[in-house]
Protein backbone atom coordinates (compact mmCIF):
# COMPACT_ATOMS: atom_id res chain seq x y z
CA UNK A 1 0.00 0.00 0.00
CA UNK A 2 1.19 3.50 -0.84
CA UNK A 3 2.36 5.41 2.20
CA UNK A 4 0.10 8.34 1.34
CA UNK A 5 -3.00 6.12 1.24
CA UNK A 6 -2.77 5.44 4.98
CA UNK A 7 -2.78 9.13 5.83
CA UNK A 8 -5.90 11.29 5.89
CA UNK A 9 -3.81 14.12 4.48
CA UNK A 10 -0.25 13.79 3.15
CA UNK A 11 1.65 16.89 2.07
CA UNK A 12 5.14 16.50 0.58
CA UNK A 13 7.58 19.28 -0.36
CA UNK A 14 4.66 21.58 -1.09
CA UNK A 15 5.51 24.92 -2.69
CA UNK A 16 3.24 27.69 -3.90
CA UNK A 17 4.75 30.77 -5.50
CA UNK A 18 2.89 33.83 -6.74
CA UNK A 19 5.01 35.86 -9.17
CA UNK A 20 8.18 34.55 -7.57
CA UNK A 21 7.04 35.12 -3.98
CA UNK A 22 6.69 31.94 -1.93
CA UNK A 23 3.36 31.79 -0.07
CA UNK A 24 4.14 28.19 0.92
CA UNK A 25 7.76 27.16 0.79
CA UNK A 26 8.45 23.43 0.83
CA UNK A 27 6.30 22.08 3.65
CA UNK A 28 5.72 18.41 4.43
CA UNK A 29 3.42 16.74 6.95
CA UNK A 30 1.13 13.73 7.26
CA UNK A 31 -2.06 13.60 9.29
CA UNK A 32 -3.12 10.24 10.66
CA UNK A 33 -6.81 9.31 10.35
CA UNK A 34 -8.94 10.36 13.29
CA UNK A 35 -6.60 13.06 14.57
CA UNK A 36 -7.15 16.77 15.16
CA UNK A 37 -4.22 18.94 14.07
CA UNK A 38 -3.86 22.65 14.62
CA UNK A 39 -2.32 24.83 11.94
CA UNK A 40 -0.95 27.98 13.57
CA UNK A 41 0.74 31.00 12.12
CA UNK A 42 0.48 34.75 11.86
CA UNK A 43 -1.20 36.57 9.01
CA UNK A 44 0.51 35.68 5.73
CA UNK A 45 2.13 32.55 7.18
CA UNK A 46 0.58 30.42 4.42
CA UNK A 47 -2.15 28.62 6.37
CA UNK A 48 -5.05 29.53 4.06
CA UNK A 49 -3.02 28.79 0.92
CA UNK A 50 -2.09 25.41 2.39
CA UNK A 51 -5.74 24.62 3.12
CA UNK A 52 -6.73 25.81 -0.37
CA UNK A 53 -4.19 23.42 -1.91
CA UNK A 54 -5.45 20.58 0.27
CA UNK A 55 -8.99 21.30 -0.97
CA UNK A 56 -7.78 21.41 -4.59
CA UNK A 57 -8.74 25.06 -4.99
CA UNK A 58 -5.18 26.11 -5.75
CA UNK A 59 -2.67 24.18 -7.87
CA UNK A 60 0.74 23.79 -6.17
CA UNK A 61 3.82 25.15 -7.92
CA UNK A 62 5.57 21.92 -6.90
CA UNK A 63 5.20 19.12 -4.41
CA UNK A 64 2.21 16.90 -3.78
CA UNK A 65 -0.96 16.86 -1.71
CA UNK A 66 -2.91 13.68 -1.11
CA UNK A 67 -6.27 13.47 0.68
CA UNK A 68 -7.68 10.04 1.57
CA UNK A 69 -5.30 8.61 -1.02
CA UNK A 70 -6.34 10.92 -3.87
CA UNK A 71 -3.83 13.34 -5.39
CA UNK A 72 -4.99 16.96 -5.32
CA UNK A 73 -6.05 18.75 -7.40
CA UNK A 74 -5.94 16.13 -10.20
CA UNK A 75 -8.08 13.50 -8.45
CA UNK A 76 -10.15 15.86 -6.31
CA UNK A 77 -13.50 14.58 -7.57
CA UNK A 78 -12.73 11.17 -6.05
CA UNK A 79 -12.76 12.62 -2.54
CA UNK A 80 -14.51 16.00 -2.44
CA UNK A 81 -17.75 14.31 -1.34
CA UNK A 82 -15.86 12.80 1.63
CA UNK A 83 -14.43 16.10 2.86
CA UNK A 84 -15.76 19.54 3.74
CA UNK A 85 -14.58 22.86 5.07
CA UNK A 86 -15.56 26.02 6.83
CA UNK A 87 -13.84 29.33 6.24
CA UNK A 88 -14.45 33.01 6.89
CA UNK A 89 -13.36 33.70 3.31
CA UNK A 90 -16.60 32.33 1.90
CA UNK A 91 -20.26 32.99 2.74
CA UNK A 92 -23.49 31.15 2.29
CA UNK A 93 -25.97 32.85 -0.12
CA UNK A 94 -27.55 35.58 1.99
CA UNK A 95 -31.08 35.71 0.54
CA UNK A 96 -31.65 31.99 0.92
CA UNK A 97 -33.01 30.76 4.23
CA UNK A 98 -30.85 28.52 6.39
CA UNK A 99 -32.98 25.51 5.47
CA UNK A 100 -32.75 26.33 1.75
CA UNK A 101 -28.97 26.69 1.93
CA UNK A 102 -28.53 23.42 3.80
CA UNK A 103 -30.86 21.66 1.36
CA UNK A 104 -28.94 22.94 -1.68
CA UNK A 105 -25.54 21.99 -0.25
CA UNK A 106 -26.85 18.66 0.99
CA UNK A 107 -27.98 17.89 -2.55
CA UNK A 108 -24.61 18.97 -3.94
CA UNK A 109 -22.86 16.60 -1.55
CA UNK A 110 -25.27 13.78 -2.34
CA UNK A 111 -26.61 13.45 1.22
CA UNK A 112 -29.25 10.71 1.00
CA UNK A 113 -31.29 11.29 4.17
CA UNK A 114 -31.22 15.03 3.65
CA UNK A 115 -34.38 16.07 5.51
CA UNK A 116 -33.37 14.06 8.56
CA UNK A 117 -29.78 15.25 8.35
CA UNK A 118 -30.82 18.91 8.24
CA UNK A 119 -33.16 18.33 11.20
CA UNK A 120 -30.41 16.61 13.19
CA UNK A 121 -27.85 19.32 12.53
CA UNK A 122 -30.42 22.02 13.26
CA UNK A 123 -31.03 20.40 16.59
CA UNK A 124 -27.37 19.75 17.43
CA UNK A 125 -26.19 23.22 16.42
CA UNK A 126 -29.27 24.97 17.78
CA UNK A 127 -30.45 26.34 14.42
CA UNK A 128 -34.16 25.59 14.75
CA UNK A 129 -35.04 29.08 15.92
CA UNK A 130 -33.87 30.64 12.64
CA UNK A 131 -34.00 27.74 10.19
CA UNK A 132 -36.49 29.58 7.96
CA UNK A 133 -34.89 33.01 8.19
CA UNK A 134 -32.69 34.41 5.38
CA UNK A 135 -29.04 33.66 6.16
CA UNK A 136 -28.12 37.30 5.62
CA UNK A 137 -30.37 38.36 8.51
CA UNK A 138 -28.47 36.29 11.08
CA UNK A 139 -25.88 37.46 13.56
CA UNK A 140 -22.21 36.64 12.95
CA UNK A 141 -22.33 33.85 15.50
CA UNK A 142 -25.47 32.34 13.98
CA UNK A 143 -23.90 32.48 10.50
CA UNK A 144 -20.83 30.67 11.80
CA UNK A 145 -23.03 27.90 13.20
CA UNK A 146 -24.82 27.64 9.85
CA UNK A 147 -21.45 27.38 8.06
CA UNK A 148 -20.44 24.69 10.51
CA UNK A 149 -23.68 22.82 9.81
CA UNK A 150 -22.94 23.03 6.08
CA UNK A 151 -19.45 21.65 6.70
CA UNK A 152 -20.88 18.66 8.61
CA UNK A 153 -23.77 17.91 6.22
CA UNK A 154 -22.01 15.06 4.42
CA UNK A 155 -20.45 13.59 7.60
CA UNK A 156 -16.96 14.36 6.24
CA UNK A 157 -14.03 12.08 6.93
CA UNK A 158 -11.70 15.03 6.48
CA UNK A 159 -12.78 18.39 7.84
CA UNK A 160 -10.83 21.59 7.26
CA UNK A 161 -11.70 24.47 9.52
CA UNK A 162 -10.35 27.98 9.09
CA UNK A 163 -11.00 30.08 12.22
CA UNK A 164 -14.23 28.22 13.11
CA UNK A 165 -14.94 30.23 16.28
CA UNK A 166 -13.52 33.62 15.28
CA UNK A 167 -16.78 35.56 15.55
CA UNK A 168 -18.41 33.66 18.40
CA UNK A 169 -18.93 34.74 21.99
CA UNK A 170 -16.98 32.63 24.52
CA UNK A 171 -20.00 30.57 25.52
CA UNK A 172 -21.00 29.68 21.94
CA UNK A 173 -17.36 29.11 20.95
CA UNK A 174 -16.96 26.67 23.82
CA UNK A 175 -20.14 24.92 22.79
CA UNK A 176 -18.93 24.63 19.16
CA UNK A 177 -15.62 23.17 20.34
CA UNK A 178 -17.53 20.61 22.36
CA UNK A 179 -19.55 19.73 19.26
CA UNK A 180 -16.40 19.26 17.20
CA UNK A 181 -14.92 17.02 19.89
CA UNK A 182 -18.05 14.89 19.89
CA UNK A 183 -18.15 14.75 16.10
CA UNK A 184 -14.56 13.53 15.96
CA UNK A 185 -15.18 10.98 18.72
CA UNK A 186 -18.32 9.64 17.02
CA UNK A 187 -17.07 9.53 13.44
CA UNK A 188 -13.30 9.21 13.68
CA UNK A 189 -12.95 12.13 11.28
CA UNK A 190 -9.61 13.85 10.70
CA UNK A 191 -9.69 17.56 11.39
CA UNK A 192 -7.21 20.23 10.32
CA UNK A 193 -7.89 23.42 12.24
CA UNK A 194 -6.38 26.79 11.40
CA UNK A 195 -6.86 29.14 14.32
CA UNK A 196 -5.48 32.12 16.19
CA UNK A 197 -7.18 30.99 19.37
CA UNK A 198 -4.52 29.17 21.36
CA UNK A 199 -6.94 27.93 24.02
CA UNK A 200 -8.96 26.33 21.28
CA UNK A 201 -5.90 24.66 19.79
CA UNK A 202 -4.75 23.41 23.20
CA UNK A 203 -8.17 21.95 23.91
CA UNK A 204 -8.91 20.33 20.54
CA UNK A 205 -5.60 19.40 18.96
CA UNK A 206 -3.26 16.56 19.74
CA UNK A 207 -0.73 18.01 17.34
CA UNK A 208 0.23 21.54 16.36
CA UNK A 209 1.97 22.70 13.19
CA UNK A 210 3.32 26.23 13.40
CA UNK A 211 3.93 28.06 10.13
CA UNK A 212 5.91 31.21 9.49
CA UNK A 213 6.61 32.82 6.12
CA UNK A 214 5.37 29.77 4.25
CA UNK A 215 7.49 27.27 6.19
CA UNK A 216 6.86 24.93 9.07
CA UNK A 217 8.67 26.34 12.07
CA UNK A 218 7.64 23.63 14.50
CA UNK A 219 5.47 20.54 14.63
CA UNK A 220 4.70 18.60 17.80
CA UNK A 221 2.13 17.86 20.46
CA UNK A 222 0.98 20.85 22.55
CA UNK A 223 2.55 19.30 25.66
CA UNK A 224 5.93 18.78 23.96
CA UNK A 225 5.92 22.31 22.60
CA UNK A 226 5.16 23.75 26.04
CA UNK A 227 7.94 21.68 27.58
CA UNK A 228 10.50 22.44 24.92
CA UNK A 229 9.88 26.20 24.89
CA UNK A 230 9.54 26.26 28.69
CA UNK A 231 6.18 28.01 28.48
CA UNK A 232 2.88 27.68 30.30
CA UNK A 233 0.62 28.16 27.28
CA UNK A 234 0.65 27.93 23.51
CA UNK A 235 0.20 31.64 23.08
CA UNK A 236 3.67 32.24 24.51
CA UNK A 237 5.07 29.46 22.33
CA UNK A 238 3.44 31.09 19.31
CA UNK A 239 4.96 34.47 20.22
CA UNK A 240 8.38 32.88 20.67
CA UNK A 241 8.18 31.36 17.22
CA UNK A 242 6.70 34.48 15.59
CA UNK A 243 9.44 36.68 17.09
CA UNK A 244 12.23 34.23 16.41
CA UNK A 245 12.96 33.42 20.05
CA UNK A 246 12.40 29.69 19.77
CA UNK A 247 14.38 26.79 18.42
CA UNK A 248 13.23 25.75 14.98
CA UNK A 249 13.22 22.08 14.30
CA UNK A 250 15.39 21.05 11.38
CA UNK A 251 13.19 18.21 10.16
CA UNK A 252 9.49 17.75 10.26
CA UNK A 253 7.86 14.36 9.86
Amino acid sequence: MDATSTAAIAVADLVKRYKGVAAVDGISFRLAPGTVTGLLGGNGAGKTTTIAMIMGLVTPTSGTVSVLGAQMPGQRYRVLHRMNFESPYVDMPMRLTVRQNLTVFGQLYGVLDLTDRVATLASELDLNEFLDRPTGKLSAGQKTRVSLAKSLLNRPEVLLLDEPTASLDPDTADWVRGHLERYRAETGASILLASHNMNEVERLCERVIIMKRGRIEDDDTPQSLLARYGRQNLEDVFLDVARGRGERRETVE
Partner: protein
Amino acid sequence: MSNAASDSGLEFSVHRVAAMVRRYWYLLVSSWPRLLDLIYWPTVQMLMWGFLQLYVSKNAGFAAGAAGTFIGAVLLWDILFRGQLGFSISFLEEMWARNLGNLMMSPLRPTEFVAALMIMSIVRLAIGMVPVSLLAIAFFGFNVWSLGLALVAFFINLILTSWAIGIFVAGLLLRNGMGAESMAWTIMFLFLPLTCVYYPVAVLPHWLQYVAWCLPPTYVFEGMRALLIDQVFRADLMVEAFAFNTVLFSAAAFAFVRLLESARVNGSLMQTGE
Protein backbone atom coordinates in the same frame (compact mmCIF):
# COMPACT_ATOMS: atom_id res chain seq x y z
CA MET B 1 -18.14 5.42 -13.47
CA SER B 2 -14.47 4.98 -14.23
CA ASN B 3 -11.81 6.66 -12.17
CA ALA B 4 -10.59 8.46 -15.29
CA ALA B 5 -13.98 10.08 -15.79
CA SER B 6 -14.20 10.88 -12.10
CA ASP B 7 -10.70 12.39 -12.04
CA SER B 8 -11.33 14.61 -15.02
CA GLY B 9 -14.62 15.90 -13.67
CA LEU B 10 -16.55 14.49 -16.61
CA GLU B 11 -18.92 12.55 -14.36
CA PHE B 12 -22.35 14.20 -14.53
CA SER B 13 -25.03 14.27 -11.84
CA VAL B 14 -28.53 15.50 -12.59
CA HIS B 15 -29.06 15.87 -8.83
CA ARG B 16 -26.24 18.38 -8.51
CA VAL B 17 -27.57 20.33 -11.51
CA ALA B 18 -31.01 20.29 -9.87
CA ALA B 19 -29.46 21.55 -6.62
CA MET B 20 -27.99 24.55 -8.41
CA VAL B 21 -31.21 25.29 -10.30
CA ARG B 22 -33.04 25.08 -6.98
CA ARG B 23 -30.54 27.55 -5.48
CA TYR B 24 -31.16 30.10 -8.28
CA TRP B 25 -34.90 29.57 -8.17
CA TYR B 26 -34.96 30.25 -4.42
CA LEU B 27 -33.04 33.44 -5.10
CA LEU B 28 -35.34 34.60 -7.91
CA VAL B 29 -38.59 34.06 -6.04
CA SER B 30 -37.24 35.70 -2.90
CA SER B 31 -36.57 38.98 -4.70
CA TRP B 32 -39.28 40.86 -6.61
CA PRO B 33 -36.79 43.43 -8.00
CA ARG B 34 -34.92 40.57 -9.66
CA LEU B 35 -38.16 39.32 -11.23
CA LEU B 36 -39.24 42.81 -12.31
CA ASP B 37 -35.85 43.41 -13.90
CA LEU B 38 -36.38 40.40 -16.16
CA ILE B 39 -39.51 41.96 -17.69
CA TYR B 40 -38.97 45.69 -17.44
CA TRP B 41 -36.27 46.40 -20.02
CA PRO B 42 -37.46 43.96 -22.74
CA THR B 43 -40.87 45.63 -22.47
CA VAL B 44 -39.38 49.10 -22.85
CA GLN B 45 -37.31 47.96 -25.85
CA MET B 46 -40.24 46.30 -27.56
CA LEU B 47 -42.51 49.32 -27.10
CA MET B 48 -39.86 51.78 -28.30
CA TRP B 49 -39.01 49.85 -31.47
CA GLY B 50 -42.64 48.98 -32.09
CA PHE B 51 -43.73 52.62 -32.07
CA LEU B 52 -40.72 53.60 -34.17
CA GLN B 53 -41.73 50.99 -36.71
CA LEU B 54 -45.28 52.35 -36.78
CA TYR B 55 -43.93 55.84 -37.45
CA VAL B 56 -41.54 54.69 -40.19
CA SER B 57 -44.15 52.60 -41.97
CA LYS B 58 -46.67 55.46 -41.96
CA ASN B 59 -44.32 58.26 -42.99
CA ALA B 60 -41.76 56.59 -45.22
CA GLY B 61 -44.10 54.25 -47.05
CA PHE B 62 -42.18 51.30 -45.69
CA ALA B 63 -43.32 48.06 -47.31
CA ALA B 64 -46.21 46.47 -45.53
CA GLY B 65 -44.44 43.10 -45.69
CA ALA B 66 -41.65 44.50 -43.57
CA ALA B 67 -44.06 45.50 -40.86
CA GLY B 68 -42.76 43.06 -38.26
CA THR B 69 -39.02 43.31 -38.83
CA PHE B 70 -38.20 45.85 -36.13
CA ILE B 71 -40.28 44.16 -33.46
CA GLY B 72 -39.12 40.73 -34.60
CA ALA B 73 -35.52 41.93 -34.48
CA VAL B 74 -35.86 43.36 -31.00
CA LEU B 75 -37.47 40.16 -29.71
CA LEU B 76 -34.79 37.96 -31.24
CA TRP B 77 -32.04 40.32 -30.07
CA ASP B 78 -33.42 40.01 -26.56
CA ILE B 79 -33.18 36.22 -26.78
CA LEU B 80 -29.50 36.64 -27.64
CA PHE B 81 -28.77 39.38 -25.12
CA ARG B 82 -30.98 38.19 -22.26
CA GLY B 83 -29.85 34.60 -22.77
CA GLN B 84 -26.23 35.61 -22.16
CA LEU B 85 -27.16 37.99 -19.37
CA GLY B 86 -29.26 35.30 -17.65
CA PHE B 87 -26.29 32.95 -17.75
CA SER B 88 -23.77 35.56 -16.60
CA ILE B 89 -25.91 37.12 -13.86
CA SER B 90 -26.55 33.73 -12.28
CA PHE B 91 -22.79 33.21 -12.25
CA LEU B 92 -22.21 36.70 -10.87
CA GLU B 93 -24.69 35.99 -8.07
CA GLU B 94 -22.17 33.46 -6.73
CA MET B 95 -19.41 36.05 -6.77
CA TRP B 96 -21.56 38.74 -5.17
CA ALA B 97 -22.59 36.23 -2.48
CA ARG B 98 -18.95 35.08 -1.95
CA ASN B 99 -20.25 31.57 -2.50
CA LEU B 100 -17.93 30.52 -5.31
CA GLY B 101 -15.43 28.94 -2.90
CA ASN B 102 -18.18 26.78 -1.41
CA LEU B 103 -19.12 25.56 -4.88
CA MET B 104 -15.59 25.07 -6.14
CA MET B 105 -14.71 22.97 -3.10
CA SER B 106 -17.91 20.92 -3.35
CA PRO B 107 -18.36 17.86 -5.59
CA LEU B 108 -20.07 20.09 -8.20
CA ARG B 109 -18.37 19.57 -11.57
CA PRO B 110 -17.80 22.54 -13.91
CA THR B 111 -20.00 20.85 -16.53
CA GLU B 112 -22.84 20.60 -14.01
CA PHE B 113 -22.38 24.22 -12.97
CA VAL B 114 -22.53 25.31 -16.62
CA ALA B 115 -25.60 23.12 -17.25
CA ALA B 116 -27.40 24.76 -14.32
CA LEU B 117 -26.48 28.22 -15.65
CA MET B 118 -27.85 27.28 -19.06
CA ILE B 119 -31.13 26.11 -17.57
CA MET B 120 -31.40 29.32 -15.56
CA SER B 121 -30.74 31.43 -18.63
CA ILE B 122 -33.79 29.78 -20.27
CA VAL B 123 -35.90 30.18 -17.12
CA ARG B 124 -35.02 33.86 -16.82
CA LEU B 125 -35.57 34.35 -20.55
CA ALA B 126 -39.01 32.75 -20.35
CA ILE B 127 -40.03 34.93 -17.41
CA GLY B 128 -39.05 38.04 -19.36
CA MET B 129 -39.86 37.21 -22.95
CA VAL B 130 -43.20 35.39 -22.79
CA PRO B 131 -45.08 38.40 -21.32
CA VAL B 132 -43.28 40.76 -23.72
CA SER B 133 -44.20 38.63 -26.74
CA LEU B 134 -47.84 38.77 -25.62
CA LEU B 135 -47.61 42.55 -25.25
CA ALA B 136 -46.27 42.73 -28.84
CA ILE B 137 -49.45 41.02 -30.01
CA ALA B 138 -51.63 43.36 -27.96
CA PHE B 139 -49.89 46.59 -28.99
CA PHE B 140 -48.74 45.94 -32.54
CA GLY B 141 -50.47 42.76 -33.69
CA PHE B 142 -47.07 41.10 -34.09
CA ASN B 143 -47.20 37.43 -33.10
CA VAL B 144 -43.68 36.03 -32.84
CA TRP B 145 -45.15 32.61 -31.99
CA SER B 146 -46.71 32.46 -35.47
CA LEU B 147 -43.20 31.95 -36.86
CA GLY B 148 -43.59 28.34 -35.71
CA LEU B 149 -40.67 26.03 -36.49
CA ALA B 150 -38.64 28.94 -37.82
CA LEU B 151 -38.80 30.47 -34.35
CA VAL B 152 -37.47 27.21 -32.92
CA ALA B 153 -34.51 27.33 -35.33
CA PHE B 154 -33.89 31.00 -34.53
CA PHE B 155 -34.11 30.33 -30.80
CA ILE B 156 -31.72 27.36 -30.81
CA ASN B 157 -29.07 29.26 -32.72
CA LEU B 158 -29.39 32.43 -30.65
CA ILE B 159 -29.37 30.64 -27.30
CA LEU B 160 -26.31 28.61 -28.32
CA THR B 161 -24.44 31.82 -29.11
CA SER B 162 -25.56 33.42 -25.86
CA TRP B 163 -24.38 30.39 -23.85
CA ALA B 164 -21.03 30.35 -25.65
CA ILE B 165 -20.46 34.01 -24.77
CA GLY B 166 -21.73 33.38 -21.22
CA ILE B 167 -19.28 30.50 -20.74
CA PHE B 168 -16.39 32.63 -21.98
CA VAL B 169 -17.36 35.50 -19.66
CA ALA B 170 -17.63 33.08 -16.70
CA GLY B 171 -14.06 31.95 -17.44
CA LEU B 172 -12.90 35.56 -17.50
CA LEU B 173 -14.61 36.20 -14.15
CA LEU B 174 -13.01 33.13 -12.59
CA ARG B 175 -9.60 34.16 -13.80
CA ASN B 176 -9.81 37.93 -13.26
CA GLY B 177 -12.38 38.33 -10.50
CA MET B 178 -14.89 41.15 -10.36
CA GLY B 179 -12.56 43.32 -12.46
CA ALA B 180 -14.10 41.52 -15.44
CA GLU B 181 -17.70 42.15 -14.33
CA SER B 182 -18.32 44.88 -16.90
CA MET B 183 -17.65 42.32 -19.64
CA ALA B 184 -20.73 40.42 -18.51
CA TRP B 185 -22.91 43.46 -19.13
CA THR B 186 -21.34 44.85 -22.29
CA ILE B 187 -19.74 42.08 -24.34
CA MET B 188 -22.90 41.29 -26.28
CA PHE B 189 -23.19 44.88 -27.53
CA LEU B 190 -20.18 44.15 -29.73
CA PHE B 191 -22.52 41.80 -31.60
CA LEU B 192 -25.24 44.43 -32.03
CA PRO B 193 -23.76 46.29 -35.03
CA LEU B 194 -21.84 43.33 -36.44
CA THR B 195 -24.67 40.80 -36.53
CA CYS B 196 -26.95 43.24 -38.37
CA VAL B 197 -29.88 43.02 -36.00
CA TYR B 198 -31.87 45.91 -37.50
CA TYR B 199 -30.50 46.13 -41.08
CA PRO B 200 -29.33 43.75 -43.82
CA VAL B 201 -25.71 42.61 -44.04
CA ALA B 202 -25.46 44.34 -47.41
CA VAL B 203 -25.49 47.69 -45.60
CA LEU B 204 -22.08 46.98 -44.07
CA PRO B 205 -18.81 47.87 -45.84
CA HIS B 206 -17.70 44.96 -47.97
CA TRP B 207 -14.76 43.98 -45.74
CA LEU B 208 -16.92 44.06 -42.60
CA GLN B 209 -19.43 41.70 -44.18
CA TYR B 210 -16.83 38.93 -43.91
CA VAL B 211 -16.68 39.53 -40.17
CA ALA B 212 -20.48 39.58 -39.91
CA TRP B 213 -20.83 36.26 -41.70
CA CYS B 214 -18.49 34.64 -39.17
CA LEU B 215 -21.01 35.36 -36.38
CA PRO B 216 -23.92 32.90 -36.02
CA PRO B 217 -26.59 35.51 -35.09
CA THR B 218 -26.07 37.27 -38.43
CA TYR B 219 -27.60 34.25 -40.15
CA VAL B 220 -30.56 34.31 -37.79
CA PHE B 221 -31.36 37.98 -38.36
CA GLU B 222 -30.98 37.60 -42.13
CA GLY B 223 -33.22 34.56 -41.91
CA MET B 224 -35.79 36.51 -39.94
CA ARG B 225 -35.91 39.27 -42.56
CA ALA B 226 -36.20 36.68 -45.35
CA LEU B 227 -39.15 35.16 -43.53
CA LEU B 228 -40.96 38.39 -42.66
CA ILE B 229 -40.32 40.29 -45.89
CA ASP B 230 -40.11 37.54 -48.53
CA GLN B 231 -42.05 34.84 -46.65
CA VAL B 232 -39.17 32.42 -47.27
CA PHE B 233 -37.65 30.23 -44.58
CA ARG B 234 -33.92 29.96 -45.29
CA ALA B 235 -32.98 26.59 -43.80
CA ASP B 236 -29.51 26.94 -45.33
CA LEU B 237 -28.86 29.99 -43.16
CA MET B 238 -29.90 28.09 -40.03
CA VAL B 239 -27.57 25.19 -40.86
CA GLU B 240 -24.67 27.58 -41.42
CA ALA B 241 -25.48 29.36 -38.14
CA PHE B 242 -25.47 26.02 -36.33
CA ALA B 243 -22.09 25.11 -37.83
CA PHE B 244 -20.58 28.42 -36.67
CA ASN B 245 -22.24 27.95 -33.27
CA THR B 246 -20.58 24.55 -32.92
CA VAL B 247 -17.19 26.15 -33.47
CA LEU B 248 -17.97 29.10 -31.18
CA PHE B 249 -19.32 26.89 -28.38
CA SER B 250 -16.31 24.56 -28.56
CA ALA B 251 -13.92 27.49 -28.46
CA ALA B 252 -15.74 29.00 -25.47
CA ALA B 253 -15.69 25.67 -23.58
CA PHE B 254 -11.97 25.30 -24.29
CA ALA B 255 -11.30 28.87 -23.13
CA PHE B 256 -13.35 28.26 -19.96
CA VAL B 257 -11.36 25.14 -19.05
CA ARG B 258 -8.06 26.93 -19.63
CA LEU B 259 -9.14 30.01 -17.66
CA LEU B 260 -10.31 27.80 -14.78
CA GLU B 261 -6.95 25.99 -14.76
CA SER B 262 -5.21 29.35 -14.82
CA ALA B 263 -7.40 30.56 -11.92
CA ARG B 264 -6.31 27.54 -9.86
CA VAL B 265 -2.67 28.26 -10.62
CA ASN B 266 -2.99 31.96 -9.84
CA GLY B 267 -5.10 31.50 -6.73
CA SER B 268 -7.86 33.66 -8.20
CA LEU B 269 -10.56 31.31 -6.89
CA MET B 270 -9.61 32.33 -3.36
CA GLN B 271 -9.96 36.01 -4.17
CA THR B 272 -13.09 36.68 -6.13
CA GLY B 273 -13.10 40.41 -5.42
CA GLU B 274 -11.55 43.07 -7.60
